[in-house]
């Protein structure tokens, strides 16, 4: 916008200058010029004619004065015209006007003389003619008259005197003539021819007096310097005219030069426009190159674009600097170098620092153009550039959303002029690159999300499958373990059979662990959240682990002071599982020998943190790290380590579910996983869980002693006979009096028969004749205060509102563990007892 007044000024100046030249270049018009010359000629010719005619008039040869009048009139008119013509000579008209004034003065003098000459000459001519006529008459009439001798003699003398006088009107001859006339006039009267005599004397005297006058006038007339003055005027005029012409020629030349200069400028503009067009095409080409470019080739595409730009600008080095977390923690640099040479040490960092410093000092995205670095004033900027070997530098800041500024830079090893008009286009090119990068990132994010979705779908499928298997398997297992327990109790301690049964029980327990893993994995939908103190969970888990791991594995727990009371929101049992899984995994990685370190710390990343598996949004986290000194994990394994059923252990060594369950649990808890590993040095699994405000009260994780019954009657309903029997054994072992039914209608009938007999009903949820909830509602119709506990092998198979409607107090997961059962029954038989959930109780569901 600033350029517009300047442009107007230039255009105005040019206009004035060209107009001035045009006016100056105005050659005196040929027509007035010719008229002036003609008028001058006319004056000169008129003067010549006048002089000639004056002589002729004096000699009596001019018949009329018309030619004189005409000559004078012509000269006057021509002179008047010359006055107007003086203006033609232009500025220096003063000299011309002076000459003209002199000419006019001469002409006025001439005219005055001419008028006097005409008047006097008329008289002179008349008298001369008359004198001659009368003299002749007298001579004729006096001839032969003796008495007139005297007069004749005198007349003769007079004639001679007159002749002499007219021939040479000297003072002497004039006196002679006058004397002769006086003598004639003095003759005594009367005389013959008296009248004629008087006439002769009169006219003679007139001649005597007039002739010198006329001759004097004639001489002055001829001497009047009209022609000289006219010539002087002509000279002055032509000089001025020549000067004007020279000036006109000069300004014509200047006009021509101006036209040539403008033409050259036009050509220059044309070329520049064309260059710009080329540049625009180049940039359009660069932009087009990104269309449909695969994501992985974006960087390559940008490098190619930079190469094309650099080639156009004649730069040796072109780059895009993307600082800050915008593109990941360390920023990003894309560059192109003409010779492919390595960049100077610390190149991107120092250059980026310089760019950012300069940009801060001159905000508003000012472009920095350095034609010659050597010409810069000494200072850190110049030093930086020189250290980088830059000779000429162009830096275009690209403002992005927010405070983030990227830089597009060009360097040359020779001095280069960076044209300002290119900068706009370069900015456009920079935007193209930035867009391409953004696009690339968006695509990457999209791909990650797609991968996550795929994983989730896979997990869900696996989970559903596992859940089904686990249910059936669980029931079988319940029977196996239950009977094994009973067998163990029934057998004497030294029996060999007992040893075998013990092995069966052990295997059953392992199978239960597998089922627990499967169910932990598949139970994602029903996360129960409560504030959990992770430290307590860790300690609990360590207690368990110490028992199960060989003593060659040293377990250490490091808790940061801040983290010791730290609380997360979650499902304690599942989190417990996570810890167990991670530690088990670590122990296995060490082949049963080494240091297993568990640490708890609070971390607060301020920016998004990239993890090995996923990203961590800024926030406050509790980090649980499990470090082993094992064989480490290679990259390929690390990538798949959290997939379900992926295991490095030999067949039968592991389920391949532990870490995938861990990942699933963490995902449900808005947590994140990070794996750091070095081959043959060990690995660290880091778990990040959102830190909860510590004000929330946390239920202490306690493992309470198993409460026992005092002979209360418990109705047990299950359609599977073995399970009924197992349940009866369990209840009996816990001190209750179990009454088992393998059919719901029969159980209902028995209840009807004696409703007060039973203190609690324990029923399976899914039975062929009547569902558990239906049975529960029927029973409560009979006795509304009856506590009913539901058992199920399918998690989430009965909605909570239906449970509540049916008056079911709690739902237990099969296979039943005896202490779970004990606690539940104790809770519902006697509401004052217990009442809090217990950590590690995997069977407990939401209390209704």
């Amino acid at each position, binding site marked *: 916008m600033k350029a517009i007044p300047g442009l107007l000024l230039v255009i105005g100046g040019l206009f004035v200058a060209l107009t001035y030249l045009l006016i100056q270049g105005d050659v005196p018009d040929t027509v007035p010029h*010719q*008229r002036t010359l003609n008028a001058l000629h*006319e004056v000169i*010719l008129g003067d010549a004619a006048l002089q000639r005619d004056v002589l002729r008039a004096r000699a009596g040869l001019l*018949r*009329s004065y018309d030619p004189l009048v005409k000559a004078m009139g012509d000269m006057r008119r021509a002179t008047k015209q010359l006055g107007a013509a003086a203006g033609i000579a232009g500025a220096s008209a003063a000299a011309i006007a002076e000459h003209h004034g002199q000419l006019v003065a001469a002409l006025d003098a001439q005219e005055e003389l001419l008028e006097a000459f005409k008047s006097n000459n008329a008289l002179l001519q008349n008298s001369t003619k008359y004198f001659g006529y009368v003299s002749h008459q007298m001579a004729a009439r006096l001839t032969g008259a003796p008495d007139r001798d005297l007069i004749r003699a005198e007349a003769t003398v007079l004639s001679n005197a007159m002749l002499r006088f007219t021939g040479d009107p000297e003072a002497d001859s004039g006196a002679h003539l006058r004397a002769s006339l006086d003598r004639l006039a003095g003759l005594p009267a009367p005389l013959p021819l008296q009248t004629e005599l008087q*006439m002769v004397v009169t006219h003679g005297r*007139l001649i005597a007096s007039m002739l010198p006058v006329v001759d004097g006038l004639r001489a002055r007339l001829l001497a009047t310097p009209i022609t000289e003055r006219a010539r002087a005027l002509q000279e002055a005029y032509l000089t001025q005219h020549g000067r004007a012409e020279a000036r006109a020629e000069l300004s014509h030349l200047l006009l021509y030069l101006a036209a040539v200069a403008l033409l050259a400028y036009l050509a220059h503009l*044309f070329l520049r426009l*064309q260059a710009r067009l080329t540049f625009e095409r180049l940039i359009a080409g660069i932009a087009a190159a990104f269309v449909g470019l695969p994501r992985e080739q974006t960087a390559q595409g940008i490098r190619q674009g930079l190469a094309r730009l650099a080639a156009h600008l004649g730069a040796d080095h072109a780059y895009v600097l993307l600082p800050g977390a915008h593109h990941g923690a360390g920023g990003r640099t894309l560059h192109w170098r003409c010779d492919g040479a390595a960049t100077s040490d610390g190149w991107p960092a120092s250059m980026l620092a310089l760019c950012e410093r300069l940009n801060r000092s001159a905000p508003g995205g000012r472009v920095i153009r350095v034609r010659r670095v050597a010409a810069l004033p000494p200072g850190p900027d110049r030093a930086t550039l020189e250290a980088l070997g830059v000779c000429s530098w162009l830096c275009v800041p690209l403002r992005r959303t927010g405070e983030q500024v990227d830089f597009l830079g060009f360097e040359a090893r020779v001095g280069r002029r960076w044209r300002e008009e290119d900068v706009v286009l370069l900015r456009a090119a920079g935007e193209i690159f930035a867009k391409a990068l953004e696009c690339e990132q968006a695509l990457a994010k999209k791909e990650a999300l797609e991968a996550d979705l795929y994983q989730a779908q896979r997990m869900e499928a696996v989970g559903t499958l596992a859940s089904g298997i686990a249910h059936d398997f669980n029931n079988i297992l319940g029977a196996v373990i239950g009977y094994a327990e009973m067998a163990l109790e029934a057998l004497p301690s030294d029996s060999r059979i007992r040893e075998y049964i013990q092995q069966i029980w052990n295997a059953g327990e392992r199978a239960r662990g597998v089922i627990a893993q499967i169910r932990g994995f598949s139970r994602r939908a029903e996360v129960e959240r409560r504030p959990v103190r992770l430290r307590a969970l860790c300690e609990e888990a360590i207690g368990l682990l110490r028992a199960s791991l060989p003593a060659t594995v040293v377990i250490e727990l490091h808790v940061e002071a801040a983290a010791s009371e730290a609380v997360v929101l979650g499902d304690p049992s599942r989190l417990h599982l996570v810890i167990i899984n991670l530690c088990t995994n670590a122990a296995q990685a060490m082949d049963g020998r080494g240091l297993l370190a568990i640490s708890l710390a609070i971390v607060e990343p301020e920016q998004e943190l990239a993890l090995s598996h996923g990203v961590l949004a800024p926030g406050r986290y509790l980090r649980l790290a499990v470090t082993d000194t094992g064989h480490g994990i290679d990259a390929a394994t690390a990538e798949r380590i959290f997939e379900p059923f992926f295991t490095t252990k030999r067949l039968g060594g592991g389920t391949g579910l532990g870490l995938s369950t861990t990942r699933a649990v963490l995902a449900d808890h808005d947590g994140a996983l990070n794996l750091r590993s070095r081959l043959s040095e060990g690995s660290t699994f880091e778990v990040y869980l959102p830190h909860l405000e510590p004000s929330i009260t946390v239920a202490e994780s306690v493992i309470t002693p198993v409460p026992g019954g005092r002979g209360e009657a418990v109705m047990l309903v299950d359609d599977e006979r073995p399970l009924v029997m197992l349940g009866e054994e369990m209840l009996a072992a816990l001190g209750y009096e179990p009454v088992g039914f393998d059919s719901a209608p029969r159980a209902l009938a028995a209840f009807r028969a004696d409703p007060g007999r039973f203190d609690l009903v324990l029923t399976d949820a899914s039975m062929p004749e009547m569902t558990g909830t239906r049975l529960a509602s029927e029973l409560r119709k009979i006795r509304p205060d009856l506590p009913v506990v539901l058992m199920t092998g399918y998690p989430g198979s009965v909605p909570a509102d239906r449970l509540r409607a049916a008056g079911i107090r709690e739902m237990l997961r099969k296979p039943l563990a005896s202490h779970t059962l004990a606690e539940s029954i104790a809770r519902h038989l006697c509401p004052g007892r217990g009442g809090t959930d217990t950590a590690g109780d995997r069977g407990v569901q939401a209390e209704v």
Partner: protein
Amino acid sequence: MKRVALASPVGRVGAVLAAGLLMGVLWLLWPASRTPQPLAPGGVPIERSPTAPADAEPITPLPAAPGLEPAKRQLGEKLFRDPRLSRGNTMACASCHHLEQAGNDGRDRPTGINGGRLDFNVPTIFNAALRFRLNWRGNFRTLEELTEAVLLDAKLMNTTWDELLAKLRTDPDYRDSFRIYGGDLEPWQVLDALATFQRSLLTPNSRFDRWLQGERRALTQEEEQGYQLFKSYGCIACHQGVNVGGNLFQRFGIFTDRPVASAADLGRFTITGQERDGRVFRVPSLRNVAATAPYFHDGSEPSLAGAVRTMAQSQLGRSMTDAEIDRVVRFLRTLTGEYRGRPVTTTELSEPP
């Protein structure tokens, strides 16, 4: 790239500019396209008019009226005859210059617009354009100057330009007529029209002119003798040229002193104030002299013969016999020409003063 350049707007504009420039150059080079600038109009072409042949008569025939723009001449005539050119619309130019007669008023001295008698006899307006100076004292060089003076003179037309132009502007006919000049009505246009008309007032075709042109029978023997006398007595010394006088100044009373009765008798002296101009007048033209009585600057001489006698005595220093005078008068009568094909006649004093 070239194709691109031509297709671009810049290329097109450049091509148009170049084509325009080329056409301009061609136009400049094309000789026929430049209108030749005539030299003559407005300019003064050199006119090498032959001076009168030395052996010809001292009097030359009147030329035909020059070619004048008819529209201007007609407008001038209308103005000439229009009394609105005077204050009170009482007096036109034609009031004193009777064009149907001898171009004068036939009186010794005219009566001014305010009733007073003026100092000089009205000279005929015929052939006035051929006089080297105008009026008795020769105090005007051009018809335009004289006309303006007459219009503005308090004793004559007594008008002012404002008044006069206002009158002319209100007249639609004049508004139309003056359009030939273009632009607003201005004084110079009025003067130019009047002067143009006056330039047309020539009276050619007098018997003497016909004689000069070779028609020997145009003059009787006596008239021819009169002409010879006119020449030999010296009248011709002043009364020569195309206008038979009117081309020089001369003192009235060379050989006799004429009485000075009024300032008017001092002649040109009243203009220049120089002693040598005392009693000097412009020599009057003798064209139509027989019709333009009374004579002399003050109109004091009613008869032509008397005027000739006075002239012979005072200017030539001699007396002429009645017979000689008669012959000269006969000659002078042959100088009466024609205006618009009709002989110029003596102005009758039929109109009231």
